[in-house]
C-alpha cells in the first residue's frame, strides 16, 4: 500500500526568470515520502547567471510540506547568501517563515564545526607513540597512588569500609569457585590425556602423575585461575568503577573527603590479592583430581599409586612458586581493572571500552609476568 502511495506523491519546482528576479514556484506535496526534483540545476543557474539579483517564491500550488521542503529551502537560501542575492521569503507560508527564523535565530558558533582532518601515516604513528607514552605514564602514576594508599593502610590511616572488603572477597572468592572447578578439572584432564599418549609409548603411564602434578602447581593452576579472574573480576571492577564515574559517584566521594584510591581501589586489590593464592591452591587440587580421573580410568594405574607418585614428585617449592605467581597475577588483574575503571569516560560506550581494555591489559600483564617469573625460576634453579 505504501509503495503505490510513494509513487503518487508528486512535487516539482518551476523556475521562471523575470529580468533580474528569479521566481521559484513550489508545486505539489513536499513531504518525506516524495521524490524531490534535484536542486543542483537551480543552484548552478543561481551561481552562473550574474543577472539575477533577487529570488522570490510562489506557493499557490504548494500542497503539504514538512522537513523535506525545509532542507531544500535552507540550501537555496544559503546558496543565495553566498552569491549576495536577495532571497525574499515573505511570500512563503507563515509556518515556514517561522521555522526559518528559528533556524537562523542562533548563528553558528565560530569554530564549533569540525573539519575532517586527514592524517598522514607518520602523523598517525607519531600520535600512537605519544599515546603509548601517556598510557605508560598513567600506569606508573596509578601504581604509585596504589602504593601510597597501601602505605596509608600499613600506618592504619586508610579510610575504607571493611564490609566492602568482605563483600569483595565474597564476590571474587567463593562465587568464583564453580567456574574455577570446571576449568581446572578440564585442564587437568587435558594435561593427562596429552601426556599419556606420549608416555604410554614407553609404558610409563605412572609418570602422568608427575606431569599433571608439576604442570598444575608450577604453571597451569595459577595461570588458569588468573585468566578466569581477569575475565570475571577484572572486567567487573572496571565496569563498576566506570559506572560510578558516569554517575559522578566518584566525584561525590571526593567532595565528602574520601580518597577514591583508598575507598574504592584498595579494598578491591586487597580482596583479590588475598583470594588468588587460595584459588590457586584449589585449582591445583582440582587439576590433579582431573588428571587422576583419566589416569586411573584409562591407563591402569591405581588411586594409591597416583597419590604416591604425586606426593613424591611435587615439592613444597613447586607449590610455593605457583602460589606466589598467582598472588602477583592477582595484583596485576586488580590493578588493570581499577586503572581502566578510574580512567573511564562519562558515557555508556566508555564503560564497555573500560571493561574490554581491563581484560586485555590484565591478560597481557599476566602473560608477561608469567614468562618473566618462569625465566627467573629457571635461572635460579628452583
Amino acid at each position: 500500500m505504501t509503495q503505490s502511495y510513494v509513487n503518487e506523491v508528486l512535487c516539482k519546482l518551476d523556475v521562471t526568470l523575470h529580468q533580474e528576479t528569479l521566481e521559484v514556484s513550489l508545486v505539489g506535496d513536499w513531504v518525506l515520502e516524495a521524490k524531490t526534483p534535484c536542486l543542483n540545476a537551480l543552484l548552478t543557474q543561481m551561481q552562473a547567471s550574474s543577472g539575477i539579483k533577487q529570488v522570490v517564491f510562489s506557493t499557490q500550488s504548494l500542497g503539504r510540506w514538512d522537513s523535506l521542503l525545509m532542507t531544500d529551502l535552507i540550501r537555496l537560501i544559503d546558496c543565495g547568501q553566498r552569491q549576495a542575492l536577495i532571497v525574499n521569503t515573505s511570500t512563503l507560508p507563515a509556518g515556514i517563515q517561522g521555522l526559518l527564523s528559528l533556524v537562523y535565530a542562533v548563528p553558528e558558533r565560530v569554530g564549533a564545526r569540525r573539519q575532517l582532518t586527514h592524517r598522514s601515516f607518520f602523523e598517525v604513528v607519531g600520535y600512537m607513540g605519544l599515546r603509548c607514552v601517556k598510557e605508560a605514564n598513567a600506569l606508573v602514576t596509578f601504581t604509585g597512588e596504589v602504593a601510597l594508599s597501601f602505605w596509608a593502610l600499613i600506618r592504619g590511616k586508610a579510610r575504607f569500609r571493611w564490609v566492602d572488603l568482605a563483600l569483595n572477597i565474597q564476590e571474587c572468592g567463593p562465587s568464583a569457585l564453580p567456574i574455577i572447578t570446571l576449568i581446572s578439572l578440564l585442564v587437568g584432564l587435558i594435561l593427562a590425556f596429552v601426556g599419556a599418549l606420549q608416555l604410554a609409548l614407553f609404558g610409563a603411564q605412572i609418570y602422568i602423575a608427575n606431569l599433571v602434578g608439576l604442570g598444575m602447581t608450577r604453571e597451569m593452576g595459577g595461570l588458569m585461575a588468573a585468566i578466569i579472574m581477569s575475565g570475571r573480576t577484572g572486567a567487573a571492577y572496571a565496569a563498576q568503577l566506570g559506572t560510578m564515574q558516569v554517575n559522578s559517584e566518584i566525584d561525590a566521594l571526593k567532595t565528602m573527603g574520601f580518597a577514591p584510591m583508598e575507598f574504592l581501589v584498595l579494598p578491591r586489590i586487597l580482596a583479590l590479592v588475598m583470594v588468588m593464592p587460595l584459588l590457586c591452591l584449589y585449582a591445583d587440587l582440582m587439576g590433579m583430581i582431573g588428571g587422576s580421573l583419566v589416569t586411573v580410568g584409562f591407563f591402569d594405574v591405581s588411586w594409591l599409586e597416583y597419590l604416591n607418585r604425586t606426593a613424591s614428585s611435587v615439592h613444597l617449592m613447586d607449590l610455593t612458586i605457583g602460589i606466589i605467581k598467582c598472588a602477583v597475577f592477582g595484583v596485576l588483574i586488580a590493578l588493570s581493572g581499577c586503572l581502566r575503571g578510574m580512567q573511564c569516560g562519562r558515557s555508556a560506550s566508555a564503560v564497555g571500552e573500560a571493561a574490554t581494555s581491563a581484560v586485555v591489559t590484565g591478560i597481557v600483564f599476566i602473560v608477561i609476568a608469567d614468562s618473566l617469573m618462569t625465566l627467573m625460576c629457571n635461572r635460579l634453579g628452583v
Partner: protein
Amino acid sequence: MSKPCLTIENMTMAYGDFIIQRDLDFTIERGDIFIIMGGSGCGKSTLLMHLIGLHAPLKGEVWYGQERLWQSDAATRQAILKRTGVLFQSGALLSSMTLAENIALPLAEHTQLGARRIRELASYKLALVGLSGFEDYYPSEISGGMQKRAGLARAMALDPEILFFDEPSAGLDPVSAKLLDDLIRSLRDHLGATIVMVTHELASIFAIGTNSIFLDADSKTMIAQGNPKQLLATTVDPKVLRFLTRGDTDNTVDASY
C-alpha cells in the same frame, strides 16, 4: 473545535499490585500544550510512559485519534508511536553516536531517504534547536542544556504530530529554561504539533501551558483539570492551590475556609 488528538479513557496504572493512579479520564486537543503536573512521586512520569507505549496500563485505554494504543497489535502500536517524538529527562542521546548520527538513526530506519538528505535533515533539526555546527560532536562533549536541545532535535526527527517532554527544564538555568519554553511554543505554532509535557516548573506551566491535569499522590487520581492560569484563579482545592503558588498561600487558604 479541533478534533481530539489523544484521549485517555478510564485508565488505571499500577506496578504489579501497587496502584499508582486510577480512573484517569482526559482529552488532549490538537495544538495543545498539555501539562501533566503534580507533586513528586505522584506518577507523572509513569503516566508519560503509558502514553508513549513503554508501560501497559492495568485497565483502560489510550486513544490516538481513532486508534487504540494498547489493545492493538504490536505493528499498529509501532505505527502509532512513529508519529510521536519523546524528549527524555536527560536527553537520552546514544553516547556512542554523534549528534547527527543520533538524529539520523530514526530517519534511516523509518524512511527511504538517501544518506545526503538524511544528513541535511539532521543539520536542519539541529539548526532549529540552535545547535548548527555541532553535528559531529558526541553527547559527552556538549553541556547538559545542549544535550537536552539535541534530544529535542532527535525527538523531532520524523516530524511527529505529538511531542512528549519529560521535565524539559530540569537542570537548566532560568534563562535556558525560558529559551526552551519559547522554542517549544514556536515549534508548536510552526509545526502544528501537539505538546504533552510532564513538569513541575511553575514558570513554564504558566508561560506556555494551555491545558493541564493535576495528579494527586494521596487520593491516587487526578484532582484538577484545565488551563493552568484559570486553575490558579478558580481552584478551591488546597493541594492544587498550594502547588500552583509554591505553598506561599498556605495561610490564606486556611483563612478563606
